[in-house]
C-alpha cells in the first residue's frame, strides 16, 4: 500500500481535527489579526532580494537566508499557528517549465514554518487544471509528503461566499482555508501574463477564489487589488528562481523560461510585485494592478523607500 501514505481513517481524523482547529483558531484570532497587522504597519516595512550567484547554489538555502535577513521566520509565524501557504500550482506542468512555484522553495518555507512551531502547515491553491494532476506534476504533492504538510483539495464545498468589500467585487466565493488561517504566506511564481502584464504576488489571489473566475478578467487589475486587499498575506515570497518570460501564464516550453535565481521577500505586497516587475524590465507603475495597489493603500511600489536588503548565496 505504498500508494496511500495516509489511510482514510487517518485522513478523516486529520480533517476533523483540522477543521475543528481551524474553526476555533479562526474565531479566537479573528479580532487579534487586525491589531497585529496594525502593529507591523508601524514598523518600517522591508524588502529582501535573495540572489543565487554561486554555480550550484541550493534554492532551499537561499530561501532560508532570505528569511534570516528579514529577522527570522519567528517574526511572522508564532507557535501553534495554523499557517496556510498559497503557492501557484495552477497548471499541471512540471517544475522546469516555470508555470508553477518551485517545489524546493515551497519545501523550504514549509520547513521554516514547522521549525517556528506552527501547529499546522497547509498548502492550498484552487488550481486551474485538475487538482490531483497539479499536485502530482508540480511537485507540491511530493513536498507535502516529505514535510508532512497538508495539501488541501479545492473541493467545491470549501468555496464559501464572503463579503469582500472591494471596489469592484462585493460578494464572491473564496477558498475557505485561506480565510480561516492564522497566518497566510503568499508564494507566487513570477510569470508574464497576456492581460495583466505579469503574474506576481497580488495576482496569485485569483487562485484563491471560486465561482466564475474567468469573468474576473473583464476588470482584471481592480479585481486583483480587491482580492489582494481581502486576503492580505502576512508575507509575500516571490519565486523568481526561474521566470517565464514568454507564452505566459501557462508556458509549456523550455524556451519560455529564463533563469533568474532570485527570491523576493517582503511584507509589502505591492513592493514585492514592483521589485519583481523589474526582472521583466517593466516599470512597476506600468503594471495596472501595481499602480492601483498603491492607489488604494495596499503598499508602495517605490520599494527603494523600504528597508532593503540583499542576500547572496
Amino acid at each position, binding site marked *: 500500500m505504498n500508494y496511500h501514505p495516509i489511510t482514510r481513517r487517518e485522513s478523516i481524523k486529520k480533517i476533523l481535527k483540522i477543521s*475543528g482547529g481551524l474553526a476555533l483558531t479562526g474565531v479566537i484570532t479573528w479580532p487579534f489579526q487586525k491589531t497585529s497587522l496594525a502593529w507591523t504597519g508601524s514598523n518600517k516595512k522591508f524588502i529582501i532580494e535573495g540572489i543565487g550567484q554561486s554555480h550550484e547554489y541550493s534554492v532551499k538555502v537561499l530561501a532560508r537566508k532570505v528569511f534570516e535577513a528579514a529577522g527570522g521566520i519567528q517574526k511572522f509565524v508564532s507557535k501553534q499557528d495554523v499557517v496556510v501557504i498559497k503557492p501557484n500550482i495552477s497548471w499541471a506542468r*512540471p517544475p522546469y517549465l516555470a508555470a508553477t512555484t518551485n517545489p524546493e522553495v515551497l519545501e523550504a518555507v514549509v520547513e521554516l514554518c514547522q521549525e517556528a512551531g506552527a501547529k499546522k502547515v497547509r498548502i492550498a491553491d484552487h488550481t486551474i487544471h485538475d487538482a490531483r494532476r497539479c499536485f502530482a*506534476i508540480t511537485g507540491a504533492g511530493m513536498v507535502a509528503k516529505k514535510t508532512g504538510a497538508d495539501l488541501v483539495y479545492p473541493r467545491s*464545498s470549501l468555496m464559501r461566499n464572503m463579503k469582500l468589500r472591494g471596489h469592484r467585487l462585493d460578494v464572491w466565493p473564496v477558498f475557505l482555508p485561506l480565510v480561516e488561517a492564522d497566518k497566510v504566506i503568499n508564494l507566487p511564481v513570477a510569470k508574464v501574463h497576456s492581460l495583466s502584464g505579469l503574474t506576481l504576488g497580488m495576482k496569485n489571489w485569483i487562485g484563491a477564489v471560486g465561482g466564475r473566475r474567468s469573468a474576473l478578467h*473583464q476588470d482584471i487589475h481592480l479585481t486583483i487589488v480587491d482580492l489582494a486587499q481581502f486576503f492580505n498575506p502576512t508575507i509575500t515570497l516571490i519565486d523568481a528562481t526561474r521566470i517565464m518570460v514568454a507564452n505566459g*501564464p501557462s508556458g509549456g516550453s523550455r524556451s519560455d523560461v529564463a533563469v533568474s535565481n532570485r527570491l523576493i521577500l517582503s511584507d509589502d505586497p505591492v513592493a514585492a510585485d514592483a521589485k519583481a516587475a523589474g526582472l521583466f524590465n517593466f516599470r512597476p507603475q506600468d503594471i495596472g494592478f501595481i499602480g492601483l495597489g498603491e492607489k488604494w493603500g495596499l503598499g508602495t511600489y517605490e520599494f527603494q523607500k523600504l528597508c532593503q536588503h540583499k542576500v547572496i548565496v
Partner: protein
Amino acid sequence: MSQAFFLILFIFLLIESRLPQNIYLDYSIALNAEKNIELDYPVKYFFQLDPLIWITSLISGHQWIKGFGWALGIVVLTFFFGRIFCGFICPLGTLHHMVSYIRPALKKQNMIHANQKHPSQRFKYFLLILFLMAAFLGLNLTGLLDPMAFFFRSLSLAVFPGIGTGIKELLDLAAQSDIKILNYISYGGEVLVSPVFGYGYKAFKSAWFIGILFLFILFLNRIRPRFWCRTLCPLGALLGVFARFSMLRIEKHSEKCTDCNLCLQSCQGAASPVPGQEWDASECMFCFNCFNACPENAIVFKLGWPPEVSKKPDMGRRAVLGGLLAGLSFPLLGRLDGRLHKVSDARLIRPPGSLPEKDFLKLCQRCGLCMKVCPTNAINPALTEAGMAGFWTPNLIMSQGYCEYTCTLCSGVCPTGAIRNLSGKEKIETPVRIGSAYIDRGRCLPWSGNGPCIVCEEHCPTSPKAIRLRQETTRSPDGKAVNVKLPYVDLKNCVGCGICEYKCPVKGNPAILVISAGESRSVANQILLKL
C-alpha cells in the same frame, strides 16, 4: 466463492479506473516529460478475458490485440469444461445469479415452468451471429450487449455516478450548514467518497438510459431466473457453442430419480437437468444448483475422458438466418448516414490517439473505460454524433470537460486499441490533434465590443500558443471605439484540446468552439495544406 471473488475484483478494477490517487509523485520523475502518469492496476483485465471481444475484434479489426491470450485461455477452458466462465467468473452473471437466488419471484410450479427450455433462448444465438456478421463487415457492435462492456458501462456511467451525485448533494448540503459538526462530517465524507465515486459532480450524456437499461435487465430476472444469461448474452452463446466437447459433464441416474423436479426448479440456465431429458451442454452454466438440489443424488457432475460430443447447441434456423441478415444490414445501414464516406459530424471529437473512424468502429466496444478514467469528465457516450453505428462510442464534450494537454489515461486503458496507446511525449511532440478551435465573434466578449477578456488565450496549453492576441480597436455596442486585445486562432498550433471552450466565460454555448476538423486521425478532415 470464485464468483464473489471475480465480482469484487471487477468492481475493484472499475473503481481503480481513475486518475491514480498517488498525488505524492516524486517530482524528480515529473522533471522529465517522458514519464506518464499511469494506472496502478490492469483495469482492462476483464475485457482481455472476454473471448467475444477478442473474436469480434479479430474478425473486424484483423488484429491480434495484446493481452487477449487470456480470452484464448477461456476458450480452451470452455472446450474442456463447458461454460464454467458463466458460472464461476462472469461478474454480470454473478449479479444475475444473486438477484435470481436471493428472492425468487416465482414459486414452485411456476418456477419449474419458467425453467423449462424455451425457444426464446435461441435469441442469444441470433445476437451472437448478428455481432459476428456485423464484425465481418467492419462494424463492431458487440460492446452494446457484451456482458463485460455492458456491466462496466452501466456501473461506471450510471450506477456509480448516480450514487455519487446523491451523496455529494447530501454532503454539500451539510457543508453549507451553520452547524459546525455537520461541516466536519461533510469534509470527512467527501474524503471518503470522492476516490470511489469521483471528484465533483460527474455527468454522462444518456446515462439515464444506460441506468434504466441496467435496472431493466436486473428486473428480467423476476420473469425467468438469469434471463440475461440464458436468452440475451451473446458471450454465453459463444461459449455455449464451444461447450460441446466438454469433459465436465452431467451424469443422470434415472433409476434414482423420483420426479420431484427440484433440479428443474433450481436450474437457472434452463439446461434440462432432469433425468430423462437430454442435457443441454450449451445452456448449462455450471452453477451446480441441480446437483445441490437433488435429494436422491440422481445428478452428478463428472469429468469424462475422452470428451464426448454432446447435444448440438439449439440455435434454430431462424436465429441463424435472422442473425446473418441483421448482421448484414446493420453495417450497411449504419453507413447510410454518410459519416464514413461523406462528412462526419463536426462535434464528433474522439479521444487523442483514436484510430481513423473506420478502424475505430471496428474495434471500439463502447465499454466506457475511457469515459470513466477521464479526469475532466470530457469523454461522453455519443448519442447521435457518430451516427447509429457509433452509438455510445466515446465523444469529447468540451463544454463539460477538456482534454488535458499532457494526460494520456484514456489511450492507456482502451482494451481493444481503438484508442492507441500514446505517451505524453508523443501526444505533445507529434502533436496529436483531436480537432481545432474557432471563435464565434458574435458572442466573444472583446470581438463583440463587450469588454476585455483573454481567458482562452491564457489557458491555451501549447507553446507557442494557438490562440494569439492582437491589440485592436473595435466598437462597443453603443458605438464607442474600444481598444482591446482580440483573440485569433493559429491553426498551426491548435491541437483541439478544448480547454478554451471549457473555460470561456460565455457559458452554455461558448464563444470559442472546438470542432473535429483538423484531427490527426483523419486525412479527409485536415484543414491546412501542410502543417
